């Protein structure tokens, strides 16, 4: 770190950039030490590896500066800088996100989201090992595995959306060994899906994440999408990264129907269909068909994959049977500590209670009561 710009050296500019980059890697890594121990434990090995790999590459570049023509080294530096930009952005998200959580500015919402995801992955063969932070929209980032939950919403009703983002982690993490080689079956399916239309790779991943969220969380996910998230006005609008909401609702509907062997989801499915039908009819965007191709095939492929790889992670609809008493207590605001149960059950029960709620105050009571019960699970999980 003692070298710097020499007026007589043609590679002086390159040298100054490389040295600065090494300093930045050190500073970024040091800043992650500020993440509290419990959260840091979830990410530190992966972060340390990522920083180390890039540090080695930059050091190699540094050693080459005096021996190699700068013409060849600038593009290498440019590539490294671009890669590190992503690493730094995620490191900042984690450090800042942890600080915001620690200051209580998320009202404990991220802890609740972590607890839900931890409960889900308890039954899965892949470990998430990251944590949620506030963001401007829900999103998942591959490098840090960080899931962002939408600020300023801290509504219990929207909690199931994190299961969708979690699907973006789980899908690519699934592996099988074929002929002595490790294969990523979801990536293979996605690669096949994008033949013919470049948008299909992203769309396939979105469909998988929707199917995954239904698989691990049951009807609560579909109800959240319809009642809280999807915009009926834009229901027919495909976006470069996401298929149209009408398509996604059809996929979610078909998935829940396929998973519901005993009619446990009937009430939820009826409410979901009615609400979406009414909303899109009012907005002039209604569609009355099920998922069309290729979405129907993608849904089946995704569900087959999940059934094969995550047999124990599937949400069991029987947990909703015989819960009329608890739903009533949630509506009345009289649910107590004895009513605590796993968070996936609580989000589903809250939604079922909401479907039968008469007015806004009752919905408020349900959200408060269910969240309070869910929070009792947080110390057990984290």
């Amino acid at each position, binding site marked *: *770190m*003692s*070298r*710097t*710009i*020499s*007026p007589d050296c*043609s590679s*002086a*500019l390159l040298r*100054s*950039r490389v040295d*600065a980059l090494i300093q*930045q890697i050190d*500073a*970024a890594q040091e*800043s992650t030490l*500020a993440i509290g121990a419990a959260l840091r434990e979830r990410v530190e090995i992966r972060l340390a590896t990522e920083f180390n790999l890039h540090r080695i590459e930059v050091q190699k570049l540094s050693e080459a500066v005096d021996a190699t*023509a*700068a*013409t060849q080294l*600038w*593009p290498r*530096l*440019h590539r490294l*800088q671009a890669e590190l*930009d992503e690493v*730094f*952005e995620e*490191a*900042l998200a984690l*450090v*800042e*996100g942890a*600080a*915001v959580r620690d*200051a209580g*500015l998320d009202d404990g919402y991220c802890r609740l989201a972590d607890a839900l995801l931890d409960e889900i992955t308890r039954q899965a063969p892949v470990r998430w090992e990251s944590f949620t932070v*506030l963001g*401007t*929209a829900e999103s998942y980032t591959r490098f840090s595995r960080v899931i962002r939950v*939408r*600020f*300023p*919403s801290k509504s219990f009703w929207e909690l199931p959306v994190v299961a969708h983002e979690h699907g973006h982690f789980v899908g690519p993490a699934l592996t099988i060994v074929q002929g002595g080689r490790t294969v990523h079956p979801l990536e293979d399916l996605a690669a096949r899906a994008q033949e013919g239309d470049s948008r299909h790779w992203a769309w396939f991943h979105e469909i998988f994440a929707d199917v995954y969220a239904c698989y691990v969380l049951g009807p609560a996910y579909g109800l959240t999408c319809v*009642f*809280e998230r999807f*915009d*009926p*006005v*834009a229901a027919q609008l495909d976006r470069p990264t996401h298929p149209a909401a009408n398509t996604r609702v059809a996929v979610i509907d078909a998935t829940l129907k396929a998973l519901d062997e005993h009619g446990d989801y009937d009430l939820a499915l009826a*409410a979901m269909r*009615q*609400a979406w039908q*009414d*909303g899109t009819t*009012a*907005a*002039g965007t209604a569609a009355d068909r099920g998922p069309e191709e290729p979405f129907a095939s993608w849904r089946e492929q995704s569900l087959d994959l999940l059934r094969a790889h995550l047999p124990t992670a599937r949400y069991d609809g029987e947990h909703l049977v015989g819960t009329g008493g608890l739903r009533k207590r949630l509506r009345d605001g009289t649910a107590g500590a004895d009513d605590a149960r796993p968070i996936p059950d609580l989000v589903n029960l809250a939604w079922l209670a909401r479907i039968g709620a008469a007015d*806004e105050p009752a919905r408020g009571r349900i959200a408060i009561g269910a969240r309070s019960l869910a929070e009792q699970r947080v110390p057990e999980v984290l």
Partner: protein
Amino acid sequence: MPWSMLQGRVEALRLNLERARDLSVRELALDHVPLEEGVWDAAFDAIRSDSVSRLWELEQLSTGIDRSPHPLHQRVAWQKLAAIQEQSEDIFRECLELMGGLTFRERDLDNQICTFADELINECARSVGRMLTTIAIPAHNGGRHAGARHIAHVQFPEWDVWTLPLVTFEYGQVAITDRPEIDAFARKSAIDVHHGLGADQDVIEERIRALLSDAFATYTLGPAYACALMLLRLDFVAPDPDCREFVAQRVAMVRGILARIADGDVADLHDKLGKHWDQALHLVLGTDPGAADPLERLALDPATVFDTFNWFFLPQAAYAVDDWDTAVQWGSRWCKELRDPKLSPAVPAVAPINRLRDALNASWYARIHEPAWVTEGADVTRELCQQIIDIRGRTRRPPGVELPGAIRPDP
């Protein structure tokens, strides 16, 4: 059910907007960030006022849905809600950016670089006759609405003094917008270029304002800004030719302003800096740097920009020969101390008249001339900056006392 679904969405958005509107410095519990109330208000004014506007629209929508004798058609109501929701996303984004950034600072995770950035902006603002400044927060690859919202960004994880001058660029956007004559100059330049090129006027204006901010930062901070920008930040290997052209335009503007600042040693440093840049450009891209004037298309002459600043900003805003004398004096001493194994670089004696820009220019002077200055220099410069801040703190005028001098009359 569908009607209540719409009402549920309206209610959820209302709660979120109210939270953004009511976010206060108390909620963030900032004990260690020296945040003046005025700065907080400036940063949050736009968020509050936008939140109130959206809440009013939401109230109108709510009335239209269920309290009007002629209820809105549901399709129209959904469309209105979608529009309000979309506009609200910007508010939430800014809120989160501020909350996250200030919490980051509160925990001193930035090695106090944002405090130095605040002070640098503060002295810059005072030099152009402004009392209300800007708050610096860490970010990666900048943020949105920086200038208009009185927020400046320090690039994560650049926690040393070398890139500190770059924060002046963001304050430049505020300063340019605040001076009506320079703001008009930016707009007129954009219109002129638009007529000539036919490109999108908003894009052109954004680019012209960026170039004027570069000019402002060089004008007020001197060579330190040019060094940080050209040696550590600008990416001339970018694959997009348009990006590369913009980089060339920024360099031309900075070099043009630097050339006007003074003769003598500044010119010497200007030549060295230019040589590094031109050589690298030639090596990597095979471009002849002298082939064309990159500013020609934008009709921005650095000399005209310099004269415009000279006319409309207070005299103390400009970086001048006297300032460079201080930088050379301090920087030369550091170089001498570095070359002598019996000496170690020390913090020079500081007077109340000294500013952070003196420290940054001295340090860059030493770095350009002496290869061993990067790490040790960063530490000594940081110490020097702290001393300047301490001395200024002891001699600062009480709040409310106006700066001496007045804006020059219109020509």
